[in-house]
């Protein structure tokens, strides 16, 4: 299987304020290695504050590592034109921030940046993300959190990405929205889109992932196929986290 992303020895120290407001160094990622294959759903799983989001943000260069490399399609992401890289590696944030205007304008944001004026595509993208076309001319301010998330997904898809990064995408959703979101992920992966998703929801990871990277306190704890990670021969620390017996470190 073709390799889409390869991460080599990624480390990052952040300076975070302590109780007295003084900045203290904290190693949020420590020598992380992994690879993501073409068309798979790859889940980065770990407790809150374990460095998952920072890691995801490095994949499209919204954040930079102190050391280590990331290869996308065999080429160092630093060598890619960053704007082109971000169109190829789309991202959906945990809290979707939509722009002022209509849903259609929002969905076509990246599209318009490229000078493309084709409006027809918006309806198709919206229904792919699980929203009816009736939303097209609604204001983005009127939407619920779940609806906003779907618009954010449609907007990322408008760039025709090869990889879609998603940061806790269904954390604000009710059970039915969650189910429709998971359906979307399965379908998208079925069409060849590579999905890299961050979550702390063990059950969701188990339902969706082909493979899972488990990160605890900035360290790689496991990189396994899903059924192996949940099987008998999983690493001890992974078992502890998956059974819910792991102390959650606060950021």
């Amino acid at each position, binding site marked *: 299987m073709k390799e889409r992303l390869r991460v080599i020895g990624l480390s990052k120290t*952040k300076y975070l*304020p302590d109780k007295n407001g003084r900045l203290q160094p904290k190693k949020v990622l420590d020598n992380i290695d992994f690879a993501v294959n073409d068309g798979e759903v790859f889940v980065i799983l770990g407790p809150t504050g374990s460095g998952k989001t920072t890691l995801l943000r490095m994949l*499209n*260069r*919204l*954040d*930079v590592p102190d050391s280590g490399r990331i290869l996308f399609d065999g080429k160092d992401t630093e060598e890619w034109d*960053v*704007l*082109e890289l*971000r*169109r190829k590696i*789309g*991202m959906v*944030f945990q*809290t*979707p*921030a*939509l*722009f*002022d205007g209509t849903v259609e304008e929002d969905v076509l*944001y*990246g599209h318009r*940046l*490229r000078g493309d004026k084709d409006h027809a595509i918006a309806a198709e993208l919206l229904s792919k993300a699980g929203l009816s076309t009736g939303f097209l001319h609604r204001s983005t301010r009127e939407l619920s959190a779940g609806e906003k998330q779907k618009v*954010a997904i449609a*907007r*990322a898809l408008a*760039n025709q990405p090869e990889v879609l990064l998603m940061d806790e995408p269904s954390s604000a959703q009710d059970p039915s929205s969650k189910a429709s979101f998971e359906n979307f992920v399965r379908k998208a992966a079925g069409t060849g889109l590579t999905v890299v998703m961050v979550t702390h929801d063990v059950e969701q990871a188990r339902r969706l992932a082909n493979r899972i990277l488990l990160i605890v306190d900035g360290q790689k704890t496991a990189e396994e196929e899903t059924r192996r990670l949940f099987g008998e021969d999983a690493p001890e620390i992974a078992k502890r986290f998956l059974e819910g017996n792991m102390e959650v470190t606060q950021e």
Partner: protein
Amino acid sequence: MIKVWASLLLVGIALFLSRIERARLESDIIIGTVRAFVQLLAIGYILDYIFDLRRVEYMLLLLTAMVLVGAFTSSRRAFRKRQGFFMAALGLGAGTALTIGLMVALKIISTEPKFLIPFSGMVIGNSMRACSILFERLTSEVRLSTPRIEAALALGATTAQAASAPMRASFRASMIPILDTVKVVGLIQLPGAMTGMLIAGARPTEAIKYQIVIMYMILCAVSITVSLVLFLSRRMYFEPGHRLADTIAQ
């Protein structure tokens, strides 16, 4: 001769009211009063000297000092103070030089120090106020818009595209004071230059000619300063590679 010492009674009233209201502004009032006195006394003597000398280099030196003091004052409100100082100095310098240069070229004012220095002072003072508002507003707008800016960057926008909304909002905010002043000039307040001319005995119809020119000049200078500083200030918030600076979130 105007009785300066007698006017201290007015400061006394302000001090008295601060005491009654328990506002604890007494020391600020005293420091402000002394500073105003010393600063104006000093500039009075300096201007006397420069007006008599009629030497261009001394005048330019004074104007440069005025720009630097203005830039320093504005930069206290910038997200990165040192960078902000250079940006403000460049913006104030360019705004003043272009506007005053244009006025001289169009023969609206002469190059005599008694015209150039007060006109430049008005330009620098107003531009500095706009620049301070710009710095203050930009930081809060960029912080507030961080999720949207990052969403735009993640969709392949450049930093200029991603930050266009907060930049536009900050530009508008920094232009509000001068626009409001221009709108109501003469209706509420007779500006300083016009007041000065009237006190000195000029006819009101003569004084307004200067005032009209001054208002338009300030409007132009403020626009130039704010546009230039806005253009430069993107560097304070973004890193190379179209990325928001880590420090903005803290």
